[in-house]
Every structure is written in C-alpha cells, then in structure tokens.
C-alpha cells in the first residue's frame, strides 16, 4: 500500500488527481430563465426576475453573489432593490463593499456585446443559503432597478455565484440578454450593442499627407480614458524621407481646441507640425491623444497602435 502511495508522486497528482478533484468539487449554479423588459423609458423602474437552479456538490451554506451588467451611467448601486426566494430560504441582497468582485466579473466574462461604457455591479445576499450535497434546489432573484436618463441600447447581463466558490470559472453562471433600448431622452441614441464608434475623424474627406488635415477627437467614443480631460494633446509620429520623427511634448503647437463636451480638434500641416523641410517627402503619419502629463493615452482600439492618417485622395 505504501508502495502504491509512493507511486502517486507530485506529477501524477497534478495530471490526474487534481483535475478529478476539481470536477467533483465544482459548484453548479445556473440561471435557467430571465424575465426582463426589452425596452424602457428613461428613469423607469424596471423589474427583472432570474430563475436560478443550484446543484450543490457539498453540504454547506454560502452567501449568494449577484452581478448585474448595466450602462455606466445607470445608478443601480443606489436605486436597486434585490431580493431572493428559494426552496432553502428567502432574503435580500446588498451592494457589496468588495470592489474586486465587479472587476473579477469583468475579467472573467467580459461585457457581452457592449463595446464599452458598461459596468458590472456586484451584490451579495445578506444571509447565507444552505445547500445539501447532491440535493438540488431552485430560487428566484427579483430585481427592481431604475434605468438611466439617456437614450441607450445595451445588453444587460447577470452573474450568479456563491461566496464559498467566488468568481471563478465553472462556479458561476452568466447570462446576457437581448439588447434592450431605453428611450425618451434628449440625447441621440447611444448604441452600445452596435459597432465601436470610431473616436477620430479627418477632414477634408479626401487628402494627401501634404494637405492641411483637420483631426477631430471625440473622447465620448471608443476608448473613453480622456473623458473629462481639461486639456488634450496630440502626439504624432512621422516618417519623412525615410526618417522617423516624433512630436509629443505638450505645448501650444500640439494642444487641441475644445469644440464641445469632450470633443477636440486640431488642424495640422505635416511639415509645419513636425518642423520638416518644405521639400520633405512624408510617407507616414500617425497620432495618439493624451492628457497634459502624458499618463493617459488613447490609441486606436482596433489596432492598439496610434491612429494612422491614411491618404484618401482619389485625384
């Protein structure tokens, strides 16, 4: 027997025993049904019901963790009433003081079809729910929350988990619903379910790198790191006559003009902006946007590189 035990060295344990143990101990909790309105009016209090089924793999009692994915400007942290009823007891949820839970949710399951501007909000049941090994039970989670005050199309999402197993793969369940629309506001519809709005536009519509180009940067779109920035600067890279040159130091020549809420613009002529000879042959130009200190930088979300200015002239 001792010899047999010795055969279970560390490597065998890692390869065979540990995964089996993991499978056995996986806590199975699933959202089997969601009742949620498909549209709402700004400021409306909506009701949502989640059907939750639990298959305990141990006899224990845990708090239930509830995650709700909503647009960033919905203040559900303060306007939500969350309760549950189940075969094993009923109770209420409270906003968790543990800020890491919401971050773990984002990292683990993402934000659905939304291109951004949404947040996971984590609630935890005030009481614990008992479970008995291999004795399944069901429950209902009832949510009443007030939607935001802006027109938006967004995909809501829900996570259920337990305090004992935390936000970890296979021990939670996540469901995203069909995109719902909130209307009645004064703003143009912000379609978070649509393609990522590109934050940078160039004018005129056709140009070469020798033309004067107006660059408009809308910090409301795409990566929103510079939302609310007091000053925005452009940091540029050029390749002219085969030589690369960068202009990044924040000063009056590369500061953008604020033309609206979080909307900035600057007109550049490459040879002037990069202080190149008049006869320089520019073959490449790209930019990113940054705050005055330079510790917040917005680049092209699609490429993770600077925004490249691609000539569009057809004549």
């Amino acid at each position, binding site marked *: 027997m001792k010899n047999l035990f010795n055969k279970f060295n560390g490597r065998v344990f890692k390869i065979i025993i540990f995964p089996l143990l993991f499978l056995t101990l996986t806590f199975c909790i699933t959202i089997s049904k969601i009742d949620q309105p498909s549209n709402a009016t700004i400021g409306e209090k909506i009701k949502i019901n989640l059907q939750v089924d639990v298959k305990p793999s141990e006899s224990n009692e845990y708090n239930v963790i509830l995650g709700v994915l909503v647009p960033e400007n919905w203040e559900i942290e303060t306007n939500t009433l969350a309760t549950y009823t189940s075969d094993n007891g009923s109770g209420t949820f409270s906003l968790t003081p543990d800020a890491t839970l919401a971050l773990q949710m984002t990292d683990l399951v993402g934000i659905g079809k939304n291109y951004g501007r949404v947040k996971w909000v984590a609630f935890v049941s005030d009481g614990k729910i008992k479970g008995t090994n291999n004795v399944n039970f069901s429950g209902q989670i009832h949510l009443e929350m007030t939607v935001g005050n802006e027109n938006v199309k967004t995909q809501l999402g829900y996570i259920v988990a337990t305090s004992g197993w935390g936000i970890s793969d296979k021990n939670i369940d996540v469901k995203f619903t069909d995109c719902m629309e909130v209307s009645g506001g004064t703003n143009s519809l912000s379609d978070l379910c649509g393609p990522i709005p590109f934050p940078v536009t160039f004018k*005129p519509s056709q140009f070469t790198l*020798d033309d004067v180009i107006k660059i408009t940067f809308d910090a409301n779109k795409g990566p929103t790191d510079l939302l609310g920035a007091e000053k925005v600067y452009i940091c540029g890279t050029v390749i002219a006559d085969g030589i690369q040159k960068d202009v990044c130091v924040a000063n009056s020549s590369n500061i953008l003009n604020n033309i609206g809420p979080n909307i900035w613009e600057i007109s550049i*002529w490459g040879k002037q902006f990069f202080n190149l000879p008049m006869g320089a042959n520019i073959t490449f130009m790209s930019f990113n946007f940054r705050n005055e200190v330079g510790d917040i930088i917005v680049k092209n979300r699609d490429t993770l590189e600077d925004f490249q200015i691609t000539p569009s002239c*057809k004549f």
Partner: protein
Amino acid sequence: MKKIITTMCFMLFIGLIGCDDEPSLNPEGFTEFKTDISGIWKISNVTQNGIDITNSLDFKSFALNLDYNGTTPSNFSLASKSPFVTKISEGSWSFDDPIYPTIIIFSDGSSAKLLKPILSSGEKSLNLEIVLGCGNMVYQYKLIK
C-alpha cells in the same frame, strides 16, 4: 414752301458741320504695361475648398518676396513654415504671360493661379489658387503687402 427751303438749308448746314473733320486716332495706340507685383506678400486669408482656415494654422511666418530685374520677374524668397505651393525657399519666378498673367510659375515647377486680373502695377492684394496635395483640394490665398 419758303419754310421748307429754310429747314432744308438748316439741315444741310448742320450736316456740313458734322462732317467737317476726319476723326483723329491716337498716334501712339494703347500702352500696355508689364505687370509688377514686386514686394513682400503676407497672408491675409486662406481657404481650403471654401472653408476659412486662416486661424486653424500658424500663417504668421509666411512672407513671399517677389523681385524684379527691371520690369521682368526675377527671384523670389519664401520665409515660411506654412503651407504653400512651392517647396523651395528661394529661386526664380515668372508669369505665364508678362502682360496678361494668369499664372505665377516658380522655378521648382510649381505654380499658383491668379484668381483676379492684375489691373495695375500698384496692386495691394494678390489672390492665388493653389493645390498642395490632393488634386480636388483647392486652397485660395489672399496675400497683402
């Protein structure tokens, strides 16, 4: 009858007066001057396809000095980090027609179209149309001395 004869004599008299002299022509003909726009020109206004961009870029450093050799365009110098059609800072320049110019030609081969005819040698403004890059992107410069 007497009145009719008197009237006819009066008309004949008038007619003889009108045909008294042959019309005289200016013996020297019309004098055509050679256009002179010499001097240092600064930017007053710039548009890009009709949109005013004067305040969108720094045009303050722009100074185009057009020289003449007698009455003939000769050298130019350009002090500028602002967009302009010629890519050289000095060279020679000329008109496409010294008397009825419509285009200024710089020695690097670039050219600027004159938007308004130059009617005298004392012009205080010069309106040029140029292309910097894209062919359908027209820049109009109003230069002043």
